[in-house]
């Protein structure tokens, strides 16, 4: 039987391009989490004048389609401006790889999302967010949907872990419906803080537990 992956995908899987880390990156992001499955991190160096992505590296804790997509997405993004790069779609990445198995879409979407998140992280850190919308509970909730609950393998919003969100004068307070001593409490807390703290109008993120 033929492999579900074509030769190009296998080639990128075997010899992934642009792997590793960038010290002092201008933008970085992580999508997914170890406890629930695939996880991918991406690091960017951006030219401050031209906004061109000069260097890009990724790391993957994932399956073949995750690694291959990480590889192709870094190739596609390198040399592009951040505005061009953030419009790269999963479809384009998949086409550049000559097609990916549909059932593996989830694993490869992660590698596309992480590029967008890293660019967003860069924009937020460098005051480039053009539409400065004040952070609302809805925005916080949307970001928390990217924080996985390892107990269930689904995000913390879908699994009803978010009990309360309060935003007052640049301080976000989140109450998580777990005891502080729970084995995953700290991992979820750190992940949640990372997703919220880069918002342009947020100075502090406080995560509390129910007991």
């Amino acid at each position, binding site marked *: 039987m033929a492999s579900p*992956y074509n030769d190009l995908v*296998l080639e990128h*899987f*075997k010899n*992934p391009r642009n*792997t*590793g880390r960038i010290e002092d990156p201008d933008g970085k992001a*992580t999508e997914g989490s*170890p*406890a*629930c*499955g*695939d*996880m*991918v*991190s991406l690091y960017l160096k951006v030219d401050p004048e031209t906004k061109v992505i000069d260097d890009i590296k*990724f*790391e*993957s*804790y*994932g*399956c*073949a389609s*995750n*690694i291959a997509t990480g590889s192709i997405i870094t190739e596609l993004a390198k040399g592009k401006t951040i505005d061009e790069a953030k419009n790269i779609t999963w479809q384009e990445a998949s086409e550049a790889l000559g097609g990916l198995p549909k*059932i*593996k879409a*989830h*694993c490869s979407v992660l590698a596309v999302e992480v590029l967008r998140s890293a660019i967003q992280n860069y924009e937020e850190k460098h005051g480039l967010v053009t539409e400065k919308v004040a952070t609302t509970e809805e925005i916080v909730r949307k970001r928390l949907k990217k924080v996985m609950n*390892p107990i269930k*393998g689904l995000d913390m919003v879908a699994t009803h872990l978010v009990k309360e969100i309060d935003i007052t004068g640049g301080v976000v307070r989140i109450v998580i419906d777990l005891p502080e001593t729970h084995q995953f409490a700290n991992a979820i807390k750190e992940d949640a803080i990372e997703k919220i703290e880069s918002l342009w109008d947020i100075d502090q993120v406080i995560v509390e537990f129910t007991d």
Partner: protein
Amino acid sequence: MENVYYLDNAAATRLDEQVLEVMKPLYFDRYSVATSEFGYSLGVEAKEALDDARTRLAKALGANSQEFIFTSGSAESSNLALKGVAKALGAKKGKHLIVSKIEDFPVLYSARTLEKEGFTVDYLDVDGEGLVDLEKLQALIKPETILVSVQHGNQEIGTLQDINAIGKICHDQGVLFHTDATHTFMRVPLDVNAIAVDLITVSAHTLHGPKGIGGLYVKKGTALAKIMDGGFQEFDLRGGMDNIPGAVGFAKAAELVTADENIRLAAMRDHIITMVSEQIPDVILNGHPRQRTPQNANITFHYVEGESITLHLDMYGIAVSTGSACFSRSLEASHVIAAIGGDHERAHGSIRMTVGRFNTMEEVVFVVETLKKVVENLRKISPLGKE
């Protein structure tokens, strides 16, 4: 592919030529159905071949030949055990069953089907090494409990249950006990005269025998109803065409397994476990360190994903399997690893290597060396395990 290093013998095994040789005459010479002693000669000879195979397999379990029925494999055997007992005793005695959480799919899904039909099922917990909690089992048994099903050896992590203790608990309370011995038959001692057991699932596909033939030991007097209607074959417990070549091949396959072979398999298993644990950092052995089937090694490699490992190994001609969700058709992580460890990460990087008759120590050494390289390379590009 030039060299194949096949370490997935728990899934299926290469047929032994000696098995094929004894099967051939049943396809070309004595190919008829098994007839009664009043039938034509060819049919009588076919019947003799079937009965002889049955007697030999029953004997391997210490049973009488009337206590061994042929099925199409371990899935059918376990279906018959669970559904057959449920059908025989559901109305008479009760509608409660107990199965362990780490059973293979035929037991697990037969139990779920029975739940839909109005039976209740308790799923028995296991500890971190995969052993069922005997006290919990004792506490779960109720007057309406009709069957307990706990496997002998696990399909993924190889843990061997103390089926003697489990059987005694069941029999003390008058409950039938079924064990799935697909991964232990002929590999681990199993004698129905020494163990309190009523039903045993066995199969040829794990023993270098043919696919599509298995058996169910049914202790004399056990309440079991037929679920496959057809003719009156198999003591009227399983209708359908007798697979006589399969039965004869199964008996031969069982007889070809020797104590020496099992020692050799265990030595290869131990080499994998010891070398990987010594030479690759951040690994965990899944399953029990001592109480495990001779053919099974299952190891989690932290910071890397199982499908990526198997795909790299495949490029070297090495065949293994993983409990990672990414590898399975359903994208669900191994229920066995979940039951012993609790998180997805342990399943995500788990690799099962199961050895068989046609593996050599040289192959196993090559596999460990390759695994070392592959895991190291994948860890280089992983965001985890760096600090």
